[in-house]
């Protein structure tokens, strides 16, 4: 069984649906039509480009190229995490907190999966490494962005309460503890929810894709289970690490709350 190739006309019909959505949003005054069209255009261009990049990578399966591609993915994901926060840390740290956490969790888990679990040779085989890392980064990115956004926003809103605790001699960890827990929960809930409903309510894209391209459903399911577990771990460790680093950064070495280290995003 071979996958049926899609023609440009096929994609154009799907694109018409998005255009219809954008048109509908104009009389409804959603203020979204530009963004819908721009995002749709980005989808088409980015995915076309990545198709070429993947093709080239698969033909030249060298570690240096894979590392380069992985680094580029990480940097873009880091920027996206920063962009999704209403209030973020000023300066290079606004970028580093999320990026470092994603690097720690996504990269180490991808390498573990490639070397120990899937055990492919060479371990950096781009046909496995890049999609795996992509799925991990994408999900970890969402978790970290949700966690960090909650952390900085809540700290900003509850500054009076945090400082009230500091005035009573509480340490910075006591003063931020509840907010930190809430932020981590906020980052983890989506992946926990999707683990609970996967297969019943939702059929994940990766598994669907494998089935469409002719993989036996049983094999596709095994890969999907593997991916879900990796994503859950990656999101969890990444979010915990980012919220932890971020909450530390909200205080200085005298345990003062330093909200001036945050700046309003767009």
């Amino acid at each position, binding site marked *: 069984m071979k996958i049926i190739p899609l023609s440009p006309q096929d994609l154009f019909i799907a694109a018409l649906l998005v255009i219809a959505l954008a048109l509908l949003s104009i009389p409804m005054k959603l203020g979204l039509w530009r963004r819908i069209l721009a995002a749709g255009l980005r989808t088409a261009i980015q995915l076309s480009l990545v198709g070429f990049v993947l093709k080239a990578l698969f033909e030249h399966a060298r570690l240096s190229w894979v590392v380069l591609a992985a680094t580029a993915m990480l940097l873009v994901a880091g920027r996206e995490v920063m962009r999704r926060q209403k209030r973020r840390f000023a300066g290079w740290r606004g970028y580093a907190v999320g990026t470092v956490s994603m690097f720690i969790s996504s990269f180490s888990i991808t390498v573990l999966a490639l070397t120990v679990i899937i055990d492919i040779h060479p371990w950096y085989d781009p046909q496995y490494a890049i999609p795996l890392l992509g799925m991990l980064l994408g999900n970890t990115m969402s978790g970290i962005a949700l966690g960090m956004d909650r952390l900085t926003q809540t700290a900003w809103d*509850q500054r*009076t*309460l*945090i*400082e*009230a*605790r*500091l*005035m*009573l*001699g*509480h*340490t*910075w960890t006591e003063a931020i503890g*509840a907010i930190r827990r809430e932020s981590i929960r906020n980052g983890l809930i989506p992946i926990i929810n999707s683990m609970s409903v996967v297969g019943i309510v939702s059929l994940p894209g990766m598994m669907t894709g494998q089935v469409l391209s002719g993989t036996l459903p049983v094999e596709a399911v095994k890969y999907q289970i593997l991916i879900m577990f990796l994503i859950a771990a990656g999101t969890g460790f990444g979010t915990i690490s980012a919220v932890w680093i971020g909450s530390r950064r909200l205080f*200085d070495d*005298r*345990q*003062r*709350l330093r909200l001036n280290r945050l700046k309003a995003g767009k």
Partner: protein
Amino acid sequence: MDGLRIEELCFQGIGPLNLSVSPGECVGLYGPSGAGKTLFLRSIADLDPHEGRVFLDGTESAEMAGSEWRRRVGLLSAESGWWFDTVADHFHSPAPADLEALGFGPEVMGWSVSRLSTGERQRLAALRLLENRPNALLLDEPSANLDPENIDRVERFLHTYRTGRRIAVIWVSHDREQIKRVSARRFLLTRTGLLET
């Protein structure tokens, strides 16, 4: 020297300020709004970045963690913060006599914070702070939202604590009469410095 000693304190374009408060002494502080009275207290409690040094009973703030310093130098802010649902969660075990001195019965501990009035919060915040047994007190308008009867209660409560433990107190108030009642020395804070009056 014992007590609270503030040397060359600078913050947000104000200062340098120097002030010594002896053990058991209460110093009154007043000044136009925006002069930096609250910022001054926050800097002493090491809640804001500042230059200069602050000593309590000969020990400098930098010699201990910020949290430890703020346990010893208690700052009572004008606006109190409450983060749990019930009053009791914010306390260890307040003495019934102390509650009574501030006009509360023991049942207040079971109340939820959301039903407290501003004045009740302010009195309870004073009690909560003193549970730490601080060795210096920085009071920022501690009775601003109170009726005369409760102002009297708070003043007496704080007086008892100050004289009983011989601690240094800085009392900020816009009420000149109150400043005269509670303090022996009074200072006017302007953007140029502290002026004894």
